[in-house]
């Protein structure tokens, strides 16, 4: 089912321009003038906190959500205009289980294959192979109702692979999985990637985005803030390092400490984040061209403001630092 794309080998797998989605009776846009594209064969990550608009974006790309404005093109076909043309090319692993609970585990796969016109022999063989690979082989005749969250997640991944899609959408795929299965899934995603499948995944797990994705778009409040390779994103932080200071003291000191830190020589910016459970624990992030010279003065500033220092560390920027740098908020609530 790849003929549409093969005719245009240079075409990106996904092109989104000025996409807007506003749900009825909703005050704000869930997706707000978003544009990006995903090259064929790429692993693209959409990284953002709860409510950022990740699922809505995937909904538009997979024909479930009708866009308010803008266009989305998948496999060379306009999704809103010709949803039927797009469907054979894509597969979705949703965030929450939507497995057909009237069926047995194996039937979920074989019927899915049948819906997509996979011949009986092929779909049965493929179903058994996938079930074995995902470690579900010995419980395949059970009803789906008896499956745990993680098993359902694995089954939905198997289901998505039944019709060999060109573009695979995974909405927070490892949320429900134990560490071992998570690693297995990452390997599996890389394998699919090397066989040429384009992968679009949403996540709020920074490690996952960092380790898997060729490119990452960071999304917040319906907007894409940046879109780059993981290495490129980390370069957003000037100087390449962050000095993190954890102070402890009366919460009222927070603002004066922040000002004192910001006034230090060489510091370009300070972000303060407080801990909602323990207001006396205050975390500051100092961005500067070089972290080392700032360590001493920073410690001095905190102490002379009357707070204690609990921890002081120079950090290589992770995507988490990048996210906080861009939004001033922590991705993990």
């Amino acid at each position, binding site marked *: 089912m790849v003929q549409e794309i093969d005719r245009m080998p240079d075409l990106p797998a996904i092109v989104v321009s000025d996409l807007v989605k506003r749900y009825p009776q909703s005050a704000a846009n869930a997706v707000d003038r978003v544009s990006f594209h995903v090259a064929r064969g790429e692993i693209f990550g959409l990284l953002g906190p709860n409510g950022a608009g990740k699922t809505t974006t995937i909904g538009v790309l997979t024909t479930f959500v009708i866009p308010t404005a803008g266009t989305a093109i998948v496999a060379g076909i306009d999704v809103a205009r010709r949803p*039927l043309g797009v469907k054979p090319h894509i597969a979705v692993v949703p965030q929450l289980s939507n497995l057909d609970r009237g069926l047995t585990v194996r*039937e979920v796969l074989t*019927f899915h294959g*049948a*819906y997509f016109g996979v011949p009986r022999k092929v779909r049965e063989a493929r179903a058994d192979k996938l079930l074995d690979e995902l470690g579900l082989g010995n419980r395949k005749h059970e009803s789906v109702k008896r499956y745990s969250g993680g098993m359902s997640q694995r089954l939905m991944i198997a289901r998505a692979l039944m019709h060999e899609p060109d573009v695979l959408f995974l909405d927070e795929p490892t949320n429900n999985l134990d560490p071992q299965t998570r690693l297995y899934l990452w390997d599996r995603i890389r394998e699919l990637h090397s066989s040429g499948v384009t992968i679009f995944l949403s996540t709020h797990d920074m490690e996952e985005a960092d380790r898997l994705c060729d490119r990452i778009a960071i999304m917040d409040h319906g907007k894409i803030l940046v879109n780059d390779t993981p290495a490129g994103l980390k370069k957003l932080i000037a100087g390449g390092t962050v000095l993190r200071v954890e102070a402890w003291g009366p919460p009222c000191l927070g603002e004066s400490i922040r000002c004192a830190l910001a006034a230090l020589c060489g510091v370009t910016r300070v972000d303060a984040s407080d801990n909602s459970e323990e207001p006396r624990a205050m975390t500051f992030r100092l961005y500067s061209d070089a972290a080392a010279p700032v360590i001493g003065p920073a410690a001095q500033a905190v102490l002379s403001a009357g707070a204690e220092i609990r921890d002081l560390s120079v950090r290589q920027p992770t995507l988490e630092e990048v996210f906080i740098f861009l939004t001033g908020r922590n991705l993990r609530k």
Partner: protein
Amino acid sequence: MSRIRLAIRAFVAIFRRDLTVTGREFVRFFLQALVQPLFFLFIFGKVLPSIRLASANFGFLMLPGIVALTGLVSAMQGVSLHLVVDLGYAREIDDRLLSPLPIRWVGLEKILFGALRGVVASSVIFPLGRLILGSGYAVRTDRIAEIIGMILLTALVGANLGLLMGTVIKPDQVSLMFTLIFTPLLFTGCTYYPWSSLDRIRWFQVATLFNPLTYCAEGMRHAMVPPIGGRELATLNTTDIRVALGVSVAVMLSLGTRSFRRRVLS
């Protein structure tokens, strides 16, 4: 594979899926469909005539109404109760909606499958009626084609009604709405009395004309009730019946598939 062939294959596979799932709950399906008509037949066709609260003819006069009602209700529930699960929190229907066929066809499949349930349920009333009514069982045999036609039409009406109700009603209001819609539907549908016998309550007679079940029951009576003492039972005109049922199927189909689309896309 051409797009249309792909869509037809998907449609067939989805129909097969419904057969598999229903096959698994066959007993439940029959209980759901048949317990009520069984008791009606027994009480109204056997008990009441035996204790002389109803005439001996009452049994076979009632039978067509029960065939119509059973077919309509089974088809309707076959669609709407399944939709409650499919469109519920877990959205189990999503996998079918992503299949390469138009969204409308997924709604059409529901109708077709619901109608099949209706046809099976109303057909079973015949042997059941013969068993319960015994010598009181009488169905004319010279209008078999008409009986089959009415069974099909009735099932289609029920299935379309099911799609419309299942998609318009919000999931948390289903049981309330069923009572609110179902009870009047049941009692204004001329199931237990011929339409012509309502002559003396003219306003009610007119009101029943707005219920599609009236036409199903009347059509079924026309096809099934043998002449009594050489006289045919007076029913609504069969052309009127066909037109009324055809129009209501068309209207409900168009509204129902549209509302189905609205419900599954956001």
